[in-house]
C-alpha cells in the first residue's frame, strides 16, 4: 500500500521501542500486531482495534480518532520542517488519555494531544530522538 496525501489527523507523536532490542526495550515484544520492530518505520495508533481503543481512549481528550488496524500505512510529516516518513501501523498506542492537553511545538506552532507513537527508525527520520516528541500532520 502506498503512502497517501489525504489528511487523516494531526497532533503530537512520541517514540517507543519494540521487537528485538537492547536494554529495557528488550522486553517490549512485537506489539499488538506481533511484527513491530524498532529498526523499521513502524508506528502505534490509538485506534488499532476496539480493544486498543479501550486502553488508549483518545476520546477523553476530544480526539475521536478513526480505526486503522494492523498494516495501515500513513505518511507522517513534521509540522514545521516538512520532513516526512512513511510508516506501517504495527502496534496499539499511545495511551492518549494519560496525556490530555500535552503539546509539542515548533516555531511557535503547537499540536496538542499524543495521537501517535513512532519507532526510533521512523521518529529519527523526521526529528531528534532526544526531543521525545514532535508536532506532526498525518496523511494516508
Amino acid at each position: 500500500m502506498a503512502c497517501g496525501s489525504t489528511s487523516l489527523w494531526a497532533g503530537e507523536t512520541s517514540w517507543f521501542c519494540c521487537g528485538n532490542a537492547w536494554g529495557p526495550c528488550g522486553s517490549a515484544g512485537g506489539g499488538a500486531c506481533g511484527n513491530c520492530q524498532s529498526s523499521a518505520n513502524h508506528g502505534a495508533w490509538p485506534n488499532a482495534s476496539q480493544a486498543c481503543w479501550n486502553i488508549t481512549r483518545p476520546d477523553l481528550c476530544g480526539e475521536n480518532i478513526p480505526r486503522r488496524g494492523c498494516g495501515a500505512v500513513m505518511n507522517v510529516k513534521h509540522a514545521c520542517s516538512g520532513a516526512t516518513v512513511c510508516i506501517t501501523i504495527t502496534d496499539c498506542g499511545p495511551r492518549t488519555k494519560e496525556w490530555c492537553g500535552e503539546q509539542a511545538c515548533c516555531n511557535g506552532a503547537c499540536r496538542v494531544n499524543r495521537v501517535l507513537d513512532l519507532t526510533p527508525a521512523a521518529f529519527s527520520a523526521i526529528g531528534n530522538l532526544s526531543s521525545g516528541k514532535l508536532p506532526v500532520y498525518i496523511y494516508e
Partner: protein
Amino acid sequence: MSTRQDRSGLGRRRFLTTAALSGATIVGASALGGLDADAAFAAEPSLDPAIAKSSFVEGRITGITGSILEVAGSQGGHSRVQMTNATSVWKGRATTAAVIEIGDGLYARGVDMPDGVVAADAVWVNIVNLDTQIRGIAKNRIHLAHGQHELVGNVLADTSASYAGRGLTSDLSRLRIGQHAQVLGAWRPSDDSVDVVRISVGH
C-alpha cells in the same frame, strides 16, 4: 522548508558526506564531537533532499576502531557506522564520541556510503523513551514498572519533570506512586538501570 533550513540542512549533510568520502577530514573518536545535537536537530533533521533516503542503524556496539563503530543489530546482522566531524552525539546529553563505549546501545541516522558504511549525522547512545508506572520514590531513585519488568531510574542533578503537559521543572516532588510516567533517559548497561533525563506525568 524555509531558506534557513535549506541552507543548514544542505550544508550539514554535504559536509557529512564530503567528510565521510574524503577520509582526510575524519578524525579519531576521541577528538570527535563539539556539535550540540539538540541545537543541530531541534527543529528538523538535516536530511539533504538531494539524498532520497536516510539510513538507520540500531544495535549494540561491539567494537570501536578509530572513527568506526561496529554495531550488532538486535534483529541480527552487522553494521559499521562512521563518525565524522559533523556527527552529533547524544548520551544522556549532547556530548562527544569520546564517551561511547563497547556494549552501549545505539541508534544512528546517516547515509549509506559506497563501501557499505553508514556515515552518521546523528547517533543516540543508550537512549530510551519508556512508558512506565511509578512504583516507588526514593531520594536518588525512582522505582518503575515497564511492562512486566521492574526498572530503577536514577535521579540526577539535572533530571527534570513535566506535569500534565506543562513546561519542564527541576521539582520532582509532585511525582506520585501509581502515576503513568514517560521516561526519557540513558540506559546503563552495567546495571540495567536508567539515568532519568526527563520524566513526564499526565493527569
